[in-house]
């Protein structure tokens, strides 16, 4: 046997083999590899968001005018409170996770079980909140009109308060006929999502109410959207208005630039997917702890590895929170 082993002359050195130079097990090293690469993926997304925002820096929606809702408080404007709550839930579930890791080091099985349980509950609350926030964002609030150039115009009263389309649009009876095969190509369906009002109804309502003004997407020198006076507003709506937008989807966004909605869906969606998979992995580890797998293995390192992933999800949220909601 001795004859076939090549000596490298590095035996006993740090990197000579048979040693753990970084003092971390294989599994933990691989988790760090994954975290670094995933961190770069998320930075790519957030930097792309920054790119688009810098490109349209004078016409970007203001986040705390967009996310003003809290569940069960309908109609009460409360910017940021709900995301702050979500952030705290996620940080708290990180704490229970790190407590589970700590209990695992001390081989306290029951404590690990309970802390893992609270972590899973926290993750579930977070994913649920995110789903609610998506639903609110998609449904929209006040409604807006999109111009021929793809810009958004929103409506205000003379005191500067936002006015919803439903409060002034008139009802003009119109017929929505069914498309039939004999009338043309069968796949030529209605191109856009149907809105409650069409553009003509909004225009008629706007012209009938003298106290309504228009706010454009462009920010003035104070960082507030520019408000036009009545004559300019009428001219703008009649000349440029094209389409009613309610809520947000990947093509239209009543809050402002459609890219804002695209990035919102993409980045929070990708993060939410990470939270969801984190919850799933946590559940698997949770049951493994209950049936005593790690007790028999003599080490709770698996809890530590899944904990690393869970903290990473929290870490990403800290950045998403800053760049989507604060800055």
């Amino acid at each position, binding site marked *: 046997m001795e004859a076939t082993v090549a000596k490298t002359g590095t035996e006993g050195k740090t990197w000579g083999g048979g040693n753990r130079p970084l003092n971390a097990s294989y599994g933990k090293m691989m988790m*760090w590899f994954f975290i*670094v690469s995933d961190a770069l993926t998320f930075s790519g997304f957030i930097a*792309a968001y920054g790119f688009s925002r810098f490109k349209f820096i004078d016409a970007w929606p203001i986040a705390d005018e967009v996310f003003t809702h809290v569940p069960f408080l309908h109609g009460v404007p409360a910017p940021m409170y709900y995301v702050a709550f979500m952030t705290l839930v996620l940080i708290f579930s990180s704490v229970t996770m*790190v407590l589970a890791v700590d209990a695992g080091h001390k081989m306290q099985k029951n404590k690990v079980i309970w802390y893992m349980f609270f972590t899973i509950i926290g993750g579930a609350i977070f994913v649920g909140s995110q789903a609610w926030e998506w639903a609110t964002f998609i449904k929209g609030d006040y409604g807006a009109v999109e111009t021929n150039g793809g810009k958004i115009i929103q409506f205000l009263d003379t005191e500067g308060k936002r006015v919803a389309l439903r409060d002034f649009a008139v009802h003009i009876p119109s017929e929505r006929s069914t498309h039939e095969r004999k009338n043309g190509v069968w796949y030529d369906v209605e191109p856009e999502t149907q809105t409650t009002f069409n553009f003509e109804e909004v225009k008629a309502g706007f012209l009938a109410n003298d106290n309504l003004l228009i706010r454009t997407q462009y920010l003035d020198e104070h960082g507030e959207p520019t408000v036009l006076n009545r004559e300019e507003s009428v001219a703008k709506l009649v000349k440029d208005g094209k389409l009613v937008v309610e809520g947000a989807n990947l093509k239209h966004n009543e809050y402002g630039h459609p890219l804002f909605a695209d990035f919102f869906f993409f980045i929070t969606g990708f993060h939410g997917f990470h939270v969801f998979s984190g919850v799933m992995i946590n559940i698997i580890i949770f049951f493994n702890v209950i049936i005593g797998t790690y007790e028999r293995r003599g080490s709770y390192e698996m809890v530590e590895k899944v904990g690393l992933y869970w903290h990473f999800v929290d870490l990403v949220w800290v950045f998403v929170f800053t760049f989507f909601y604060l800055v």
Partner: protein
Amino acid sequence: MAHEHKLEIFRGLWKFKSNVSKIWGVFFFLCAVTAVEVVLGIIKPEVLTGNRFLAMKWLNWIFIILTLVKAYYITWDFMHMRDEKSSLRRSVVWTAVFLICYLILILLIEGDYIYEVYKNNHVKFNF
């Protein structure tokens, strides 16, 4: 590392008796930082939004710095970076920091350039 933890944060200013109490200490610190961010985000003091430092509002500097502070404590105390070997710590942190800084620099300069093109030239708002 497994069983030894460094039990002090803020460079030794705040010492803890056990790892569990350190975790709660870090938690309260993170909550406090988040609370400061949210309060500033809601009231938006005129002094901080009106004045700029290196082309960015003071408020945004504060938000970004506080975010990095939070990221540091999450990585160092929750992910136990504080207890890892410095070689592991450096290879993870500096790789990410270097690549991310480079990416941000390139993309933001490019975004600003395109903004100027839209603003000063006759190019339509098209994508």
